[in-house]
Structure formats: C-alpha cells, structure tokens
C-alpha cells in the first residue's frame, strides 16, 4: 500500500467521527520506483493531508519531507521529487493501521490492509 492510499483511508466504524489519519505500524516496507509525473502531484496536492503524509513517511525512514508546505512549493522540482517518492514509491508491506479514535487495529498483510469490520462495528 502506497502512502497515497494511506492518506485517503479513514476508519468507518459506526460512531467514529474522526477516523483519520490511521496511525501506521510498520513492520516491513519496500520502495518501488515509479515514473515521475508532476501533473499528478499538482492535481493531488490540495487533497493530501500533509501532516499525515509527513508522519507516515517518517515511519518509513523518509525524513525528506518538509513539515510545512504551501502550493508555491509545487514549482520547486526538488520538492516535487520528494513528494513523489513519499506518496507513490514507499509501500507498507507488513504492519497495521490504527484508528485514532477507537484504537482498533487493521492488519496489513502482503501490502493489503484488512478493512473488514466486525458485525458490531457496522
């Protein structure tokens, strides 16, 4: 799972009002190179919750993202490459996602988060 997807995920257990961001528990992650496309990054930037991306990347030993950002930085090629790497090239392979409100743990195996809810959570 890429951090792009992690940034979009939100816990939807019944009654949870703030299911985002899910905290990452990283056992194992991999890096896969993908083609750089600045248009996609610029398109996605307004939708990204930056702090969640920043913190998630840190958990995968990526300390290259600035803590504070604004849209003017999208003109900077160096920034775009860092953004690209964190968003699309880091993959959580094994670990878990933790709901910030309930502490419910969603396991991640072979890169696939198990987001299935129990009957009493629906």
């Amino acid at each position, binding site marked *: *799972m890429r951090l792009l*997807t992690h940034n979009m995920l939100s816990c939807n257990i019944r009654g949870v009002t703030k299911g985002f961001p899910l905290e990452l528990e990283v056992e194992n992650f991999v890096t896969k190179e993908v083609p750089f496309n600045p248009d996609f990054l610029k398109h996605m930037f307004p939708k990204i919750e930056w702090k969640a991306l920043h913190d998630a990347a840190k958990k995968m030993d990526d300390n290259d993202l600035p803590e504070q950002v604004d849209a003017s930085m999208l003109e900077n090629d160096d920034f775009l490459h860092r953004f690209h790497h964190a968003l699309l090239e880091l993959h959580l392979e094994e670990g878990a996602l933790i709901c910030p409100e309930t502490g419910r743990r969603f396991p991640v195996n072979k*890169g696939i988060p198990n987001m299935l*809810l129990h*009957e009493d959570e629906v």
Partner: protein
Amino acid sequence: MATRPENQAPPEIFYNDSEARKYTTSSRIIEIQAKLAERALELLALPDDGIPKLLLDIGCGSGLSGETISENGHHWIGLDISSSMLDIALEREVDGDLLLSDIGQGLCLRPGTVDGAISISAIQWLCNADKSCNEPRLRLKAFFGTLYRCLSRGARAVLQLYPESPAQLEMITAAAMRTGFSGGLVVDFPHSTRAKKYFLCLICGPPSVNTTLPKAKGEQGGSETDESSGDEENSAVGFSERRRPRKKLRVSKKGQRS
C-alpha cells in the same frame, strides 16, 4: 441457464482460491472484463487533460479491470471482499493498491478525495442477505452514501452490474438516487439478451447542464435510453428518471462537460 454465482454463496466464500484462479485464467472472462472496464472508463468521461486521476475500482477482484485503468494512465485503489481474488491480483503485480473491504459496510475513504469510480460486475452482490446481519437496503445505503462522500464534487461513478430482476435493479438505482447522485442507467445493446449490459452512471452533485448521461450503444434507430419503452429493463430506466427533475437526461451529446 447457469445458476447465478450470487445465488450460490457469499462473495468471499464463492470466490475462493480455485474459483478466483478460474476467473482469472479464463481468456473469455478476461476479455469480457477488459471490454466492460474500457466501456466504464469511457462512460466516466474524465476530462481529456492528460493528467492522471485517482480512481476507485469497486469489487476489483483479481485486478482485471484495474489493469485497464492503469493502461489509461490513471492511479487506482481497488476494493474487494475476497482475499483469494486479491491474492491473485498480487500475483499479477497490478499497479493499484488493494483493500480487503466489504463495500456493504461503507467505503473507508476520506470525503472528496477520489476523482471517479468504476465497478465491474460487483454491486448486485450487495443485494444478498447471506448473514443475518446483512440487510440489503442498509448495505446499499452505506455503500452509496460513502461513495458519494468520497468522490470529489462533479466526479462520476460508473457501475456495471448484472441485476437479477427488474425489482433488484430498481432497488439499487433508487438507493443511489436517494443519496443525492444524479445520473441514471445506460443500457448498452438493450435489444440483445446476450450483449445487453447495464451501467449505472452516477454523478456526484445535483443535475446541471453539464451532467448529461452518455448515450447507450447498440440502440437501433438512435433512440435514447429514456425514450424507448416496453420491455422490463426500460421500465426500470424510466423509474430512475422519474426521480429526477426536468429533462437533464435528454441531451443526446455524449459525455460533454466543461
């Protein structure tokens, strides 16, 4: 006629390891899925600006339809309830991210994040009540409500489905419209029993001049989906339209938006 898989077992049971493999090695199924995905993408009418979009593949299975999304240059997140199917998607090294998820429990995504969604041959499964806790109406409501929420404004969802009956189609369509979607049903090749395909084309937000339904394929005499009548399918189309104000569906130009 073969028994519908929907009537045999719940999807996470029906699509076990052997069924998932069968599904993904049959060249006939691969071809059909690719064609349906291609058509769904066409109906999605994404802006032709060359910018990759983030799409959902709902009921992505082994990633056959996701591959079509990748070939068109977009990123995608696939959701499926069958871990056997997702395992095969992993084996096939699809480009999208995969989530093991039951769409009848609602989509676990933040509001306004996704640029569009497609679904191939999946959402009729929502009408199954395999467990005592499964109430189809609630599951449809949870699905469409969260789908609406996670789409960005003006975004579309194109859901190809195999309804079991006109009543089921009506239930699904009505559930979608109740959550605030505009749009309706596009029926390709409505006069052919074999080739007939249903696409529920949903637009996030109220109807406007920019939200016109694309035209169906293979309709003789060039009649619109909303003008033909007589058979059971088309009465279902009419139903979805009656819920919508004015004549937004009648514009015949295909997929135009600004």
